[in-house]
């Protein structure tokens, strides 16, 4: 079964002014679209063709660079579109907020840690909020399209929030000013969806 490029739950211009419509459209149709078709090409006719993306990533060290790069790119962008919404921003609540306060001290401290991870990732990659197997929340980053579900990743666990810091995610609007893009991101975070992933 081939993987499909998912539709977005909102219009390309819905995240304006934080993320512009042109960036969203190219990011979704071209970048995510290319990861999807290249992943399908890499697994076609192999025993990976019947596996879920999570299963593929869990043993990705045994597969080709094409599976690692495009499988990661496919999964990461799926998550990224879901954890954003035009009605986003603010703070989490309930159990997720409690867990964040327990593991980071406060929501503000969590945000600062996450901002640092996103700003200091050199080159292309992702910043993550990850739920570890023991339930603890940690923040970290991965290079290129790697992610915490991959067996070869140093940062391991279930990603519940992710921020794309490849330059293609922000260059048309923010150019070299990655920190401004990171600041803007907090206005569109879908905390309901992040909480759902936390409780899953």
């Amino acid at each position, binding site marked *: 079964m081939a993987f499909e490029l998912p539709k977005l739950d909102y219009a390309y211009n819905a995240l304006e002014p934080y993320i512009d419509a042109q960036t969203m459209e*190219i990011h979704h149709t*071209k*970048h995510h679209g*290319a990861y999807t078709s290249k992943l399908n090409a890499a697994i076609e006719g192999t025993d990976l063709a019947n596996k879920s993306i999570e299963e593929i990533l869990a043993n990705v060290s045994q597969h080709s*660079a094409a599976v690692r*790069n495009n499988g990661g790119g496919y999964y990461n962008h799926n998550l990224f579109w879901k954890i954003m919404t035009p009605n986003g921003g603010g703070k989490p609540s309930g159990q997720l907020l409690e867990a964040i306060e327990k593991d980071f001290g406060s929501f503000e401290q969590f945000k600062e840690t996450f901002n640092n991870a996103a700003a200091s990732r*050199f*080159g*292309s*990659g992702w910043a993550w909020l990850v739920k570890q197997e023991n339930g603890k929340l940690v923040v970290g980053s991965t*290079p*290129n*399209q790697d992610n915490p579900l991959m067996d070869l990743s140093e940062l391991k666990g279930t990603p519940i929030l992710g921020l794309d810091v*490849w*330059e*293609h995610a922000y*260059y*048309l609007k923010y*150019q*070299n000013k990655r920190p401004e893009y990171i600041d803007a991101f907090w206005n569109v975070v879908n905390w309901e969806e992040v909480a759902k992933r936390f409780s899953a």
Partner: protein
Amino acid sequence: MKFSLPQLPYALDALEPRISKRTLEFHYGKHHQAYVNNLNKLILGTKFENADLETIIKEAEGGIYNNGAQVWNHTFYFSSLSPNGGGVPTGPLAEAINESFGSFDAFKEKFSEAAATLFGSGWAWLVKNDDGKLEIVKESNAGNPLRQGKVPILTCDVWEHAYYLDYQNKRPDYIQVFWDCVDWNIVGGRF
């Protein structure tokens, strides 16, 4: 040693329409400048405070390496280009390319492929090995072949910031115009 941003050897709009003035304003004026500034801050009080860039590239790690190599890489990249670029190399470089790759077209195809397939941010390089032979290498992020004892002859920056304003996801289009900007007199002189 305090590093400073070297002069761009042409005007910011000189490579239009292949590489836009806007791209160079950011690429040279912001990115290259930021690597210089970061490096100057990071080396203070370290053993690299008085080192030259080549020493930093060969011996440093982490932020000092990343910023030092990026200063060098960008200076090298910008000075490989010219508004009067394009065409083909001549003389000893042309002969060495033919010897190592069969023909200039075969070299161009192989270098373009290396630049197009480098995943994430990085650089495609033409380098000279110890034995005088030419080789194409891909380096991620700030990677610089001097660290492996290879001599850089030509490089193409494939960080998205090098082309995203002009070409967005179409990296191969950028690589194609890159060839029209390469100044083979300068590149041949390095060889």
